[in-house]
C-alpha cells in the first residue's frame, strides 16, 4: 500500500493536472482511497495507469443510502511490481447515475461494470454492452439498493398458515 504520505503525493499530482478531480483522500486501516468527481474518473484512471497501477483488481458498487449522493463506485487498482493497492472512489446520485466507463483502459472492467449497473443502476457511459448480467434482462429494479426489499417467501408456521395464500386449500 502507499502509505499516507504517498497517497497525498499522488493526490497532489492529480490535483495539479486536473484541478477539480480529487474530492478527498482517505487512509484507513492501511488502505488508500481517493475520492474523485465522476467526470474526472477517466483522466485520473489513465494517470494512475501511467504511474504504475496497471492492474484493475476489482470494480464494485455500493449504496450509501440515506447519505447523498447515494451510489458509490469503487475501482481497486493494483501495482504488481511494487505490490501497491489504491482505490478510486466516486459517488453519484440516483437522479443522474452516470459514470464514465473504464473499459477502454481495462477490458476486464466489462463484466464488473455490468454487474454494478444491474445491482445498483449506475450507468457507465462508453461501455460496449450496457445491459443486465445477473438478473433476467427484463427485470425491473436494482436489487442491491438498500431500499430494495430482500424479498423471499414467508416462512410458514402454525400461527400464520391460515393467512398465507394458497397454503390451506
Amino acid at each position, binding site marked *: 500500500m502507499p502509505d499516507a504520505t504517498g497517497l497525498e503525493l499522488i493526490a497532489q499530482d492529480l490535483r495539479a493536472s486536473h484541478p477539480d478531480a480529487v474530492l478527498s483522500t482517505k487512509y484507513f486501516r492501511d488502505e488508500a482511497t481517493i475520492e474523485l468527481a465522476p467526470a474526472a474518473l477517466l483522466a485520473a484512471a489513465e494517470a494512475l495507469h501511467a504511474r504504475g497501477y496497471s492492474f484493475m483488481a476489482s470494480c464494485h458498487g455500493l449504496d450509501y443510502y440515506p447519505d447523498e449522493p447515494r451510489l458509490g463506485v469503487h475501482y481497486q487498482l493494483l501495482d504488481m511490481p511494487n505490490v501497491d493497492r489504491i482505490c478510486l472512489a466516486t459517488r453519484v446520485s440516483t437522479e443522474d447515475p452516470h459514470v464514465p466507463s473504464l473499459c477502454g483502459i481495462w477490458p476486464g472492467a466489462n463484466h464488473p461494470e455490468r454487474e454494478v449497473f444491474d445491482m445498483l443502476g449506475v450507468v457507465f457511459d462508453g461501455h460496449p454492452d450496457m445491459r443486465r448480467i*445477473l438478473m433476467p434482462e427484463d427485470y*425491473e429494479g436494482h436489487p442491491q439498493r438498500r431500499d430494495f426489499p*430482500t*424479498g423471499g417467501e414467508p416462512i410458514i408456521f402454525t400461527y400464520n398458515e391460515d393467512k398465507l395464500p394458497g397454503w390451506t386449500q
Partner: protein
Amino acid sequence: MEVTRSRLGPARPAEDFRIRQLRARDMLRGDIPDEELQQYVEERVLTTTLDKAVAWARGNSLFPATFGLACCAIEMMSLPGARLDIARFGFEAFRASPRQADLLILSGRVSIKMAPVVRRIYDQMLEPRWAIAMGACCSSMGVFNNYAIVPADKFMPIDVHVPGCPPRPEALMHGILRLRSKIQGDPPAGWRERYGAEGTEEVLGAADLPGTNAINVFQSGETQRA
C-alpha cells in the same frame, strides 16, 4: 407462452394402489351389474399385476438427468463415486439429454433466471418422470430467503424433498431409495393422477401481457379444464 393440459381418458379418482386392489377384490365378492363388473375386474386384475411388474422395473432402472446447479451438485457427483457407489442400485447412468432421463435431481438453488429453463427441461422429459428436490434451497428457500431464489414447488411437482445444506451423499441416497419404493408401490405414473391433481394446471404469465410481475415466475391464473 400458454401451457394447458387436458386429460385424454375418463376421469378416475386417484386412490392408493392398495385401496384399489382391495376394492376390486370386494367387488368381485359383491353384486355389481355385469358389464361394469367385467370391465372393472379386467382393468383391475390386468393393471394390478402388470403395473406392479412395470413399476418394479421402473424403480430399479432410474436414469437420472445430469442437472447440477450449485453446491449440492458436488455432493450429487459423489454419488457415483467410489465410496457411495450408486451403481449398485443401477442408477449410475446419468443421461445428459432430458429426453432419455426419467429422474431430475434438482441439486442446488434455482434462481429466477433459471426457473423457466428447469421447467422447460422437466417438460422435455417423457412420462413417467420423477423429480427430487435435493437440498434446502430448492425444497424451501434454504439459507437464502430473498428475491433471487424460487422454491421448486412453485413451478414443478416434486416427489421427494431431501433436506440438508448440502445433504450428505448418504442422505441423497436415502432420498432416491425412498423414491424407488414410492415408484414400486404406486403404479399410476402420470403425476396428476398420482396426486389427484387434475384441474390444477396453471397458465404461465406471458411477457406480452401488461403488468406481468417480473419477480414471480408464473402468474397464477385460471385453471383450464379439458
